[in-house]
């Protein structure tokens, strides 16, 4: 067991006196039976103490204990770490993790260790002066004499409040029970029931005498469904076509059309990326980029668009590298393990390793199983029947994983693998051609830059280290050192180079993926209070015992595979149809993203303290539907979206508000504010500039200088994309942990440092400031003005109407158009604005409409 005294910080993070750090002897003790062992120790017969010893205790030891120790270890109400120092037996019995004094090896006793600040530091506040340490040491040497008449057989302090146990009662908790398809309830209003979902919803409404809201209008529905499945507004043409479509199955056709589009994967992929804490950088000081992280993002989008069965999707992400036949796709999927934050310069390397593993255990537990397994890192889960042992058994599945990398270059070795390609020779030629082309462009760029470089002052030399500054520094020297013609060429070349960077031939691309240390994993131990310095019992991989009591036998990985095979076992258990949590958790998420809230409102917590499902039978119905449908999400989407429940209006009525204000029973459809990415994408879609190109490396929209100034090296890690690329959908924007896109961030983007199961929808004045005043918005408003000038003809009324129509996706009423016309005309007349500039200001308002950012 490591005993690096200089790394004391970790141990001092333990609660004062909460527990003795485990010495090697304790490592053999199983967690949970420590107290039994300790009682045996306490049975040690008292040594007969001489009068001199007793005097020593009374005159020197007792006052010292009283002054420095007994407040927490004997006299106070609270007994820290279960240790009392008030009697010989209680000292020998010790605390939570073992005896305080070992009579066989008194000088190695934990008490002696602790007062010398070797492992634990006691008293926590200040080290005792040497003379006092000497007194206590002497006392231990004398085998801790206590004078006769003391409380010899003091009872052990009462055990702390029990954590929920792994027992029959808890096994019977709703989320741990097997999923059984519930019978579909009978309802009175059968006419409303389009499929079983409606029966489940309506039966609850009928019980309290509420009626479901009437159906939403066709215009509301197409807007709702398009944002729901695409995260984009329907075009005016699509709205017109749908509202004019009188066929009885027009709505079914709409849903099918939306599901068939690749935009579906972009929208629902975003949900998944929120869950798996996806970002393209590592956070911390350098916040450096994760190479090829975008491969994982594209994998997610592709998988959803292919309607990959969810169980397969889970298996690929957890163990795609071990999955026969999964190929490149399986390898890229395991990028899942590499998405988290990573401190490339940790203060304590061992602690950091466990923090990284905790990130994985926490994400897997919450995302796939809906359980906060992470709460059992330091102690048994206080609210769920998840013993600390289960945390480490789960961690053991990941015991073979190599760390993400090392600061100097180790990422390539640990986390990148080449993709397999078919025709080797052909690919080689392609790669060579690409490299040559890149070198040519790059050399020419350097040549032009070399004309300006000698002119740089020392500040500029530093600035030149950041790519983003190159163009500005060269431009400053046009035409003095660089001719206009050359500069134009330079700009062209910069774009070409960026394009080349973003279009490596497949044979050059790599997978950001998991790797393991070999076919044998490192040992995993339970860690006392989560401290790597205090390992207790060794554990083997095991499932959560509340769900699956038996332990898996792990067959060796197939020949040729350099991993332990452990993750495959976990993946199979999670993705197995018998797992009671997996299908429920995912069905709940699908419902959540359609309806704005889950049937279980705490989608990452299906534990005892999660919120109970508002419709438990409906949830189980959906879970069985998901599995019965081959785990395919698209058929579940279709079932949900074709229900009457999904098609309800969001309008309130007095009865509903009075009986069920929070809409627990789904008597109406809840309104929803667009998410940050949807808002940005819609701004661009509405003014006709959204670039729908899919996939590839992340892009870099312009971030205002004032925001870049918050970086320790302004502009570091933020490149310049071509104007077309800047207008790509938000999911393709390079997601830098320490530099989020301001507009998207202010509208509650997911914080990617951990799993994000539910987006906030906050309202704050900074949002208004950026919508009204930002350079970006003023520019986009100008583009919208130009768009309607081009497409709506010369009449101002038509232009205003088109702007409104595009933003609200409905036909504006005359009053709304009049209002716009009036403002624009007044701006022209009173503020002497050109018609375009006046229209532009109006367009800025259009972007701030509540109806633009809220869906009915």
């Amino acid at each position, binding site marked *: 067991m490591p005993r690096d005294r200089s790394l004391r910080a970790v141990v001092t993070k333990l609660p004062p006196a909460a527990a003795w750090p485990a010495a090697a002897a304790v490592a053999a003790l199983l967690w949970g039976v420590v107290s039994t062992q300790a009682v045996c120790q306490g049975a040690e017969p008292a040594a007969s103490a001489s009068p001199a010893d007793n005097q020593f205790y009374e005159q020197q030891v007792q006052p010292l204990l009283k002054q420095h120790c007994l407040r927490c270890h004997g006299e106070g109400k609270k007994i820290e770490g279960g240790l009392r120092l008030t009697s010989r037996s209680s000292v020998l019995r010790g605390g939570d993790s073992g005896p305080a004094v070992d009579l066989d090896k008194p000088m190695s006793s934990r008490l002696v260790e602790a007062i010398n600040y070797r492992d634990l530091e006691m008293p926590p506040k200040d080290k005792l002066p040497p003379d006092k340490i000497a007194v206590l040491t002497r006392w231990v040497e004398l085998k801790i004499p206590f004078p006769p008449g003391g409380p010899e057989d003091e009872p052990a302090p009462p055990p702390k409040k029990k954590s929920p146990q792994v027992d029959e009662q808890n096994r019977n908790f709703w989320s741990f029970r097997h999923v059984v398809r519930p019978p579909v309830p009978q309802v009175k209003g059968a006419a409303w029931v389009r499929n079983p979902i409606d029966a489940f919803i309506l039966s609850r409404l009928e019980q309290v005498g509420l009626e479901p809201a009437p159906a939403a209008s066709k215009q509301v529905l197409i807007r709702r469904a398009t944002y729901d499945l695409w995260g984009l507004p329907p075009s005016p043409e699509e709205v017109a076509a749908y509202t004019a479509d009188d066929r009885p199955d027009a709505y079914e056709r709409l849903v099918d059309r939306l599901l068939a589009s690749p935009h579906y994967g972009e929208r629902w992929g975003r949900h998944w990326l929120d869950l798996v804490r996806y970002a393209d950088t590592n956070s911390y000081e350098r916040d450096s980029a994760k190479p090829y992280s975008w491969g994982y993002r594209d994998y997610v989008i592709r998988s959803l668009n292919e309607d990959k069965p969810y169980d397969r999707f889970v298996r690929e992400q957890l163990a795609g590298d071990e999955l026969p036949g999964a190929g490149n796709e399986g390898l890229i999927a395991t990028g899942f393990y590499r998405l988290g934050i990573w401190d490339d310069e940790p203060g304590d390397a061992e602690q950091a390793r466990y923090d990284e593993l905790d990130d994985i255990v926490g994400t897997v537990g919450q995302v796939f199983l809906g359980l906060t397994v992470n709460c059992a890192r330091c102690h048994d889960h206080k609210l769920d029947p998840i013993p600390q042992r289960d945390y480490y058994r789960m961690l053991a599945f990941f015991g073979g994983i190599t760390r993400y990398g090392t600061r100097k270059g180790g990422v390539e070795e640990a986390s990148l693998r080449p993709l397999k390609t078919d025709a080797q020779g052909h690919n080689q030629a392609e790669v060579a051609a690409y490299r040559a082309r890149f070198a040519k462009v790059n050399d020419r760029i350097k040549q032009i830059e070399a004309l300006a470089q000698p002119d740089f002052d020392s500040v500029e030399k530093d600035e030149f280290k950041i790519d983003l500054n190159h163009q500005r520094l060269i431009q400053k020297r046009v035409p003095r050192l660089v001719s206009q013609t050359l500069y134009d060429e330079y700009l062209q070349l910069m774009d070409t180079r960026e394009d080349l960077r973003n279009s490596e031939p497949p044979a050059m691309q790599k997978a950001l993926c998991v790797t393991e240390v070999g076919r044998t994993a490192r040992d995993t131990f339970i860690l006392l209070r989560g401290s790597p310095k205090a390992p207790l019992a060794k554990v083997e991989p095991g499932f959560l015992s509340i769900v699956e009591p038996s332990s898996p036998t792990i067959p060796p990985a197939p020949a040729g595979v350099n991993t332990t095979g452990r993750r495959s076992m976990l993946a199979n258990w999670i993705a197995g149809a018998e797992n009671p949590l997996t299908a429920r958790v995912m069905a709940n998420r699908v419902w959540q993203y359609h309806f704005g809230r889950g049937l279980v*409102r705490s989608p990452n917590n299906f534990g005892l303290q999660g919120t109970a499902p508002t419709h438990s039978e409906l949830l189980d119905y959906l879970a069985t539907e998901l599995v019965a449908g081959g785990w395919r999400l698209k058929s579940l989407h279709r079932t949900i979206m074709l229900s009457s429940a999904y098609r309800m209006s969001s309008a*309130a009525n007095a009865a509903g508000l009075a009986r069920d204000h929070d809409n627990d029973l789904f008597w109406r459809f809840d309104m929803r504010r667009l998410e940050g990415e949807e808002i940005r994408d819609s701004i661009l879609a509405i003014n006709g500039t959204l670039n729908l190109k899919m996939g590839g490396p992340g892009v870099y929209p312009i971030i205002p200088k004032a925001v870049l100034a*918050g970086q320790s090296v302004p502009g570091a890690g933020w490149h310049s994309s071509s104007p077309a690329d800047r207008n790509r959908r938000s999911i393709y924007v390079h997601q830098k942990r320490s530099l989020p896109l301001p507009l998207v961030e202010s509208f509650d983007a997911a914080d990617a440092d951990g799993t994000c199961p539910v987006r906030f929808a906050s309202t704050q004045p900074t949002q208004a400031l950026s919508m*009204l005043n930002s350079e970006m918005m003023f520019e986009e408003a100008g583009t919208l003005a130009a768009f309607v000038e081009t497409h709506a003809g010369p009449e101002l009324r038509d232009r205003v109407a088109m702007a409104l129509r595009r933003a609200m996706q409905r036909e504006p009423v005359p009053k709304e158009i009049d209002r716009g016309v009036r403002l624009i005309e007044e701006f022209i007349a009173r503020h002497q604005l050109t018609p375009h500039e006046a229209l532009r200001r109006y367009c800025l308002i259009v972007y701030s409409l509540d109806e633009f950012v809220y869906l009915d």
Partner: protein
Amino acid sequence: MSHPPTGSFCGRTRREFLWQAGAGFTGLAMLGLLDKDGFFASQAVAADGKTPFGNPLAPHTPHLVPQAKSVIFLYMYGGPSQIDTFDYKPALVGKEGKTIEVKTRGRQGARNKGRIVEPRWKFHQYGQSGQWVSDLFPNLATCVDDIAFIKSMTADSPIHGSAMLQMNTGKIVSGSPCLGSWVNYGLGSLNQDLPGFVVMLDPRGGPISGAKNWQSGYMPATFQATLMRTRGEPILDLAPPAGISRPMQREMLDTLAQYNSEHLALRSDNTNLEARIASYELAYRMQSAAPEATDLGQESADTLEMYGINQPKSRVFGRQCLLARRLVERGVRFVQLYSGGAHNDDNWDAHSDMESNHNLHAGETDLPVAGLIKDLKQRGLLDSTLLVWGGEFGRQPTAEYAKGSGRDHNASGFTMWMAGGGIRGGQSIGATDELGNIAVEDRYHVKHLHATILHKLGIDPNRLSYLHSGLDQKLVGVEHVEPIQKLI
């Protein structure tokens, strides 16, 4: 539910229900959040369907009687050296260059011996209380009777990235809300026309990890800091684009309000829509309130002088300190100023040459900080404003390299100080060993500092919690933490 909570430790169902309710975060859910009963009561109020916009930053009633209303955190980024500033170590004097056995831990890892670099400045005692201050701070030295020095600070990491996160968020792992976020979450803001949490950066650059040092982590963006500048536009996107005058913008907002009110009329039960309409008016008011707050032209020549604004070296930090005073005067809860930015000697990270580095940074800040204390005092604001001074860690008594006077990082013992907000000045608590290397007496951790700051503001650090990832997260961690008793 058949399983009632087994303790108050890890979670509360109702709260999670609200946080994760489909409509997402609303201001209403925030009111009275600190108090469980109050929390449920406000929920009932919200359920009437008529309750108007509840601003999450509306002031809340604190747990305890607050002594301070606001905090100004003077963040000395990079890690000032304790033994060259306030932690007087006569034992080092005359030992320049001597190699000794000493355990240190910094960016170079753990070492067992090192070459002593003597403190580069002379120390003298000041004030009635006789506090030791080095010649780096001739002006601040005149304020020591208002200052309480904590000379036994410790932190978990001697590496900037994680140590900065710990000083600002309590955790060495990225992703948690900042101290200022917690304060605003707990107390709300006293001025709705200004942000409640303001950060001002050194013009040389931001600190490493950038926005991670002022973001709200797992809390809503409402609680993250707003960056303010003393020159140009004080807040990002505060000023309308060129070509939109204030009257023009007023007309635009009125037109917008007409559209939005019509939209609301059919959806009057949705308080978020109302909140959004209100937020545009709030933004409009901020446009005048923030420039007013940042307009130093209203200050007298004497005041500018006091903050060193007339001197080139102290101009920038002086303006920031003065602006900080103007902000707390207007009810801003938490202001954090960075002395030092970017990398290396652009901040207090003196790895190569102590003298040039600390002369620069102390020279820039000494007069402004002293001015701030005196100015707050003369205006009667010092009692309600808590000042905190310090960096993410301190420095070692020995040299980092074979040559030169630079010192490596040291998280095992360093000095911070507090003043105002009811702090008893003129005292030093805790001590490092005779080398000034390791805190040995009354050792305090960053969490104790945080607990003390919250306590001064009337917040019980052990009760201020936020449910995230299944845990009631706290700034000070899940274990009980005592504020520094000698300071309260």
